């Protein structure tokens, strides 16, 4: 061949090589995370515990998901339209998506998933939102139309529910455990190995429709004790872990930690509260609840329990949610106002014994909380002290979780309860605040009834217009803070640490895990090298 003809080939080769070498992100390595409990099932419709839900999140996709700014965006759906005055949602599904076994993903799979969600024989806790659907139509291979009985805005987010493959599961009983242990999804990772109680190993899905993730493996190590997980971090046995406030502040201040780990302090998506049993005459008067709110110093709680890593809660919404408004100001810490309000309701210290009394009875009540949560117990203790300062006697009762749920919450057998909500990203909280949700097993276990809140909750669900919804939720926040059915305490920050070798982490309102498929480790720093790509 003459030199002239070789030149273009050399140039092409050079361009090709340079593009490959200039491509900065390396494939390989594994991400090891510690989990306190083993997953129970990898059948997403049955996953009610966080370990199962986390793993399913890597293996499956829903039609929609939340992006880094907590806005809904398409996952398996390319786009969607709201039709028929808000009664129907039409999803246009992505083409060229394949299941882990190579079969194509189609509208049939979505229809199948829906049919299972409303199947009374399947033990799924997620059926609630899907029972509001009137009809499900497959318009074509990649389009589905879901018509609701009434316009239902939260329905859109509910389609973040994982979609399961019809061609593999159609004739099977999903309650069976074998299927739970051999999941096939569309997600960025597939199940490689599940050693019960030891680890769950996920390997990369090279054909993932978004892009092939860089990290070759996602491994959950099951370490049943949080303190041991933390210790494992100190010897780099796990690559990331949530941190308690104390760990974040003190125990990660060592040079070892600073060299090997990044710490992240992100706003939290849940809040802790003291719920009043509104059927109890002691708490019926709004002024009493407001008085108690003034008597407890939330800043002190955050400083003592969370070591400063948190915000005062000002209502039932997470601060970074679009439904939240900063117009509602939390009450100040003011013992005088508290005492005055209590006096108005007839509570005074008539016999100078240090306790408020009325008609011969001392003002006392019990705070009930669950075992195994140090934060809540500490919070209860501090509240106890503050209320003692204004003459209210508080007893603390700590009960084991199962008993707590069934004997105390289920049977409304409590005076006040110290609990937390872990909030979903869709702000609709009808199930917690609507006066109809007070049956046993439902979430309005304090018995709250406010007609205007009821009306606003229903209205906010009926429209897809985010501005209108926000308007309703802002009003709800105002009313709830005024009414004080809960003493809204604090929103703990989400504290975590991740090994520094992982690049590509970008903190955003959604946290840091949302772009895991973009994380990568430079080849020289890769720790688990025996893994093939």
């Amino acid at each position, binding site marked *: 061949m003459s030199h002239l003809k070789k030149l273009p080939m050399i140039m092409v080769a050079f361009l090709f090589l340079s593009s490959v070498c200039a491509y900065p992100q390396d494939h390989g390595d*594994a991400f*090891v995370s510690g989990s306190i*409990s083993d997953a*129970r*099932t990898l059948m997403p419709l049955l996953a*009610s*515990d*966080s370990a199962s839900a986390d793993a399913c999140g890597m293996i499956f996709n829903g039609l929609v998901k939340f992006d880094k700014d907590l806005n809904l965006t398409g996952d398996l759906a390319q786009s969607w339209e709201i039709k028929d005055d808000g009664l129907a949602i039409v999803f246009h599904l992505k083409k060229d998506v394949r299941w882990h076994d190579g079969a194509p993903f189609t509208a049939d799979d979505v229809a199948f998933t829906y049919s299972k969600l409303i199947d*009374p024989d399947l*033990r*799924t*806790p*997620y*059926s*609630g*939102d899907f029972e509001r659907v009137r009809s499900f139509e497959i318009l074509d291979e990649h389009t589905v139309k879901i018509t609701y009985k009434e316009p239902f805005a939260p329905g859109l987010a509910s389609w973040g529910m994982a979609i399961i493959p019809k061609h593999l599961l159609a004739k099977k009983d999903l*309650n*069976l*455990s074998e299927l*739970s242990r051999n999941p096939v999804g569309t997600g960025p990772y597939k199940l490689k190995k599940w050693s*019960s*109680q*030891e*680890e769950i190993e996920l390997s990369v899905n090279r054909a993932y429709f978004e892009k092939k993730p860089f990290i070759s493996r996602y*491994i959950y*190590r*099951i*370490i*049943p*004790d949080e303190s*041991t997980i933390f*210790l*494992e971090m*100190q*010897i780099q*046995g796990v690559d990331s872990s949530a941190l308690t406030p104390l760990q974040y502040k003190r125990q990660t201040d060592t040079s070892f930690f600073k060299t090997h780990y990044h710490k992240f302090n992100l706003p939290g998506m*849940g809040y802790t509260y003291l719920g009043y049993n509104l059927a109890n005459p002691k708490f019926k008067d709004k002024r009493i609840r407001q008085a108690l709110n003034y008597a407890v110093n939330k800043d002190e709680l955050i400083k003592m329990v969370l070591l400063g890593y948190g915000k005062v809660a000002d209502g039932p919404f997470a601060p970074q949610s679009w439904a939240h408004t900063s117009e509602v100001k939390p009450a100040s810490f003011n013992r005088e106002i508290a005492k005055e309000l209590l006096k108005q309701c007839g509570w005074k210290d008539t016999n100078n014994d240090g306790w408020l009394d009325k008609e011969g009875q001392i003002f006392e009540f019990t705070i009930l909380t*669950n075992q195994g949560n140090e934060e809540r117990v500490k919070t209860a203790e501090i509240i106890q002290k503050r209320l003692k300062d204004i003459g209210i006697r508080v007893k603390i009762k700590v009960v*084991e*979780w*199962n*008993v707590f*749920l*069934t*004997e105390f919450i*289920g049977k409304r057998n409590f005076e006040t309860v110290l*609990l*937390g*909500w*872990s*909030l*979903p990203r869709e702000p609709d*909280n009808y*199930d*917690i605040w609507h006066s109809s949700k007070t049956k046993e*097993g*439902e*979430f309005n276990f304090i018995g709250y009834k406010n007609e205007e809140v009821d009306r606003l909750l229903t209205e906010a669900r009926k429209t897809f217009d985010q501005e209108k919804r926000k308007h309703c939720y802002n009003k709800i926040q105002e009313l709830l803070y005024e009414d004080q059915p809960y003493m809204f305490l604090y929103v703990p920050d989400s504290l975590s640490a991740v090994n520094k070798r992982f690049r590509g982490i970008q903190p955003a309102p959604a946290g840091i895990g949302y772009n895991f498929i973009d994380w990568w480790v430079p080849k020289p720093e890769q720790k*688990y090298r*025996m893994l093939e790509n």
Partner: protein
Amino acid sequence: MLTYIFRRLLAMIPLVLGISLMSFAIIHLAPGRPSNVDQSLNPKISLETRMRLEKLYGLDKPIHLQYLNWLKMMARFEFGKSFSDNRPVSEKIMERIPITLTINIISMIFILIIAIPIGIKSALNPGSLFDKSMAIAVFIGFCLPGFWIALLLMNLFCIQLGWLPLSGIKSLDFEYLSFWQKAIDLSRHLVLPIFVSSIAGLAGISRYMRSSMIEALSQPFICTARAKGLPESTVVYKHALRNAILPIVTILGLSIPGLLGGSVIFESVFAIPGLGRLFYEAVMSRDYPLIMAEVVLTAGLTMLGNLIADISYAYADPRIRFRKQ
């Protein structure tokens, strides 16, 4: 002899039944119901499923019917399915047996290898420096709270020195290791748990061995043996030891049920997927089928252990053996 064993085995059955009945009553009367919900409530995960679950598991039927159903299952040697993940109970127990058994057996061997010689040597030289220092060491070992020593050792060997891995039973890249590397990896993971769980046993058995040996050595027949002119080692090892070993055998027999028991505390601290932890979690989540299976297992094994201890004692002691006939 055989009829004796047979009779004992028969007698075990009503005992196990009685224990299962009591346990069944206790766990069903205890407050709280099976639940799989996490501690931070998420309003999207409804609690109503619990009601559906109750029907599915037959928990809405009266207690005696539930017990009878369970008995019927047991008669077919079926243990039912675990409430938490619907897997057969027997499968869940079987997958944890190897690790618990391994740790316990190695621990027992370790104890015997170390404690018996210590006991014998102390008995041969009572009051010596060895005896006194062993006595002190053993005494302290006996009184050490196991979980505390586990924490201290973990801190020293895993964190400060970094010689041993912290938790779990194998490394992440286990499957890629050669056979020898695998063996070493397992050993490194199990060293601390085995050591910590052996401490109390070491102390107990060496003390027992010592006192038992001293008593055996003070028997008249030892005097006779020495008078016969037998070498000292024969006197000690053939005659005295044989008699002294009997209580140890009894203890071994009684420890057999313990072989399938794990300590919850060690297993959570060291993250070992063993039977102790399985049981603990079953109790916490009211996983009735699993709890009942473990109760029956433990009770059965305990009785088996007693039986073996009695038999071996009878066998080893010719007086009892011959008297039976």
